[in-house]
């Protein structure tokens, strides 16, 4: 058995962490810190086909499947987006193929970050989530075929 917690339990952890912050500064400093700590994506992956373009910032994302679990790596040129990416990776990377596509992502709303998803053109985040789910579907389909 894998040691990875389920999607809802990681989401719950994040909601709890954010509940400790009582100012927007603390919340964003935490996100900025996560963004800075996110392992940079090696340059070889920063190519056009892995690019998710937003109007303002760019996101790169790759995924792979190992033993039926989907692993994501991603990066961005903007730090707050990177922090949000880091959370998405924490929730979804290592989950069973097929589990990610159905996640409702309510935690983003609960930690007060949904505005970053609403602005479709301003960053690649919304598109990144869509791509994460599409990749999950594709890996799941491939798994079921083999």
């Amino acid at each position, binding site marked *: 058995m894998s040691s990875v917690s389920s999607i809802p339990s990681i989401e719950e952890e994040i909601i709890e962490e954010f509940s400790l912050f009582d100012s927007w500064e603390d919340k*964003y*400093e935490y996100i*900025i810190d996560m963004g800075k700590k996110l392992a940079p994506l090696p340059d070889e992956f920063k190519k056009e086909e892995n690019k998710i373009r937003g109007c*303002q910032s760019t996101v790169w994302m790759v995924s792979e499947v190992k033993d039926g679990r989907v692993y994501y790596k991603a990066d961005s*040129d*903007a*730090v707050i987006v990177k922090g949000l990416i880091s959370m998405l990776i924490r929730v979804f990377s290592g989950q069973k193929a097929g589990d990610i596509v159905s996640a409702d992502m309510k935690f983003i709303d609960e930690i007060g970050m949904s505005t970053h998803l609403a602005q479709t053109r*301003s960053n690649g985040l919304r598109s990144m989530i869509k791509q994460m789910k599409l990749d999950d579907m594709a890996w799941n389909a491939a798994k079921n075929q083999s």
Partner: protein
Amino acid sequence: MESVMNLSRFDVQKIRDQFPILTRSVKGHPLVYLDNAATSQKPKAVIDALTDYYTGYNANIHRGIHTLAEEATAAFERTRETVRSFIGASAVEEIIFTRGTTESINLVASSWGRTNLKAGDEIILSSLEHHSNIVPWHMIAEATGAKIKVVPINDEGEFQFDEFEKLLSAKTKIVSVVHASNALGVINPVKKIIDAAHRFGAVVLIDGAQSTVHLDIDVTELDCDFFAFSGHKVYGPTGAGVLYGRRTLLEAMPPFQGGGEMIREVTYEKTTYNDLPYKFEAGTPNIADTIALKAALDFVTETGKAAIRAHEDTLLEYATTELKKLPGLKIHGDVEKKVSVVSFTIEGIHPQDIGILLDNQGIAVRTGHHCAEPLMNRLCIPGTSRASFAMYNTLEEIDSLVRGLQKVIKMMR
């Protein structure tokens, strides 16, 4: 309404009282609205004009014989006269109402371009253009085989006039340049550009989206062939824009769109077209917003463009001085001749992060490439943060911006 024109000192508080939105707060902070180059806020006079129209005399214009239609038509045509006078055109027939600058440029590119451009002809643009003064020309160039030539700028975004002169030739058919850059605020030497282009028989379109709110516009004195602007950047409603065109050119151009209003006679075999300006205004126009545009332009005229300009110059100078004190901050387009726009980057901080963290402090700026990707590529930056000032902004708001940025720098470092 008492005119503020005669005030010896620019009374910014009195101006602010005319803009209801300025009293709201954002995320617990008083709103500091510094995104005026994207769209300006609307004074009460404009909001009232919209309400008056819909509550008092809403009707379709030009065709109705009843009282409401007559009142609406008269109000709509009064805006045309106000626009004519605001930009110094000689006749109302030269004022075409559009949705905005983008549609105005598309109208010229499509209607003038289709009949006047052929393979081998050249269209000259500058490196400062907004996508709306690039893409319509790409489209018509693809359709006709004409070529696009681009005038370079220096590192501060200044138009290189010598290089422009080298590009001019008998092949040049149209020069379409921005009056003031939306991304940097830099003002182009449009009078010189127009005169030089005319010596080669080329026509000139001036994109006045950013300049009309700040500078005195006189299309007759400029001698431009087309001038485009958007009402919503001049304190007016969205969706009400203007194309000025020289009468002889407009008369020779085919209609842009077909439909009602623009016809004289229609049979299933043939349509004959209406006179100017109606030939270019197919369908029911944006009546309410066009009527309210008059209130916006009157408001600017009554306040006094010179007084507004002086106030905005004070804001620009103060912002430029104060922002430069911040560590790692660089202003792009730091030149003498510019409108009240400060576009900047801070070393090591992505513009989007700046925008998000300022928004959390109630400060609205624009971040990104400002729909001018070729310009950002030229300056080798992914984008900038842009603070743009209007008549209602204050020195205290610039202090808020500076404090806001100090906080951003502290949080990001």
